[in-house]
């Protein structure tokens, strides 16, 4: 079936299997490989994207359900080679090990800081509870969130 959606500001369409997930459409049909495919059951958060501004696991959205709607992926965070402050913070804090969980974490962190620019430690942990890092580099990831929050605070008064 034909699914047409707005991805990162532009309308894209693809012919997909009616049972296909949004994740498989993004990766296999639209070539957006930044969104990762790991557990396919909503456990790991590697496939996190925004659907009409809400953080979701794209593996649990039927592609057909996203028809006519707006999707933002990890690729929307950087512009013309300039990284988003969250991405800069992940690099600086050493929050990237194998890197597989990184896009999902960065989308979840950017989502948190959009809603709550000064999150408490508990809020950060709860906001990231749907993302797994199997290198278990969580402390550095928490450092990156604090760094990003400080940086973004300075740019946007």
């Amino acid at each position, binding site marked *: *079936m034909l699914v047409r959606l707005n991805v990162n500001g532009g309308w894209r369409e693809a012919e997909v*299997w009616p*049972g296909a997930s949004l994740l498989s459409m993004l990766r296999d049909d639209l070539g957006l490989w930044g969104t990762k495919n790991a557990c*396919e059951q*909503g456990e790991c958060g590697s496939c996190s994207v925004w659907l009409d501004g809400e953080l979701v696991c794209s593996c*649990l959205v039927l592609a057909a359900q996203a028809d006519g709607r707006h999707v933002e992926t990890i690729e929307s965070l950087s512009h013309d080679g300039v990284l988003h402050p969250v991405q800069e913070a992940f690099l600086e804090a050493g929050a990237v090990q194998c890197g597989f969980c990184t896009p999902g974490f960065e989308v979840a962190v950017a*989502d948190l800081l959009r809603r709550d620019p000064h999150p408490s430690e508990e809020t950060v942990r709860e906001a990231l*509870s749907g993302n797994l890092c199997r290198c278990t580099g969580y402390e550095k990831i928490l450092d990156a969130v604090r760094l990003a929050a400080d940086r973004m605070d300075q740019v946007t008064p």
Partner: protein
Amino acid sequence: MEVFRPSSLYEALEVRAAHPQAIPIAGGTDLMVELNFGRRRPEAILDVSRLPELQVIGREDGRVTLGAGVTYARIIRELADHPALAQAARTVGSPQIRNRGTVGGNLGTASPAGDSLPVLAVYDAEVVAASTAGTRRIPWREFLVGPKRNALAPDELIVAVEWRQPDGPGSFSKVGTRNAMVIAIAGVSLQLDTAARRIRIALGSVGPTILRAPEAEAFGAGILDESGAWADPRAEVPADALGRFGELAAAAARPIDDIRGTAAYRRHACAVLARRALTWALDDRRLAAG
């Protein structure tokens, strides 16, 4: 496979009548896993996520209507005056899951581990089901008929769930291996009805379906009577009576051994959670009384 994407409830009910084999999908947190893993290949899928009628949260004359398509994230934001339901919503999955998962999904899947279900049981909720022939209200005790089975007819859709706003403290708690992304090993919801001087308690994940514990409910109301705690929230309820309340609640469980826990552990967890739930409810009343 065919996907139907109606934009109104009536259109959806017409599809449901013509294609009763079509599996409804809302947040997709249950169905997509089965599709992704090839465990299920339905002939057709009925997307109910675009139906505005399912997004309603209504309050009228002390009755609350919660649309089947309302997500757990919205429940946390908009039903903070329902602590038991809001607490259950907070324990569901992760932020990503709570942005998608719906109460209608819990009711449709009818798993004994559905986190919102013990709360709806203590609210004595009614499930509003609709077909092209009309709407009916299914009493809670008739809705869940077994593990992953409910009383919905093949041509019906779950539209909403309704209850009378409870007058008194309530809670939901569950036991699992971590705070997020956990299927409960045991879950307990308790609601005090101070006007009627009744206690309602329900158990999840410890039987083929959600179980109320009538003996514990009667005993609990009785000890609050004897101690004078209904009339005076500051009255002390003896600790051994609270312990006995927990044991009676656990006696209503019908647990099995499975990969998540043993029957004996589940029964023990019910006793502890039930005792704590009643203690919290009494503390809440004491705090409110000042």
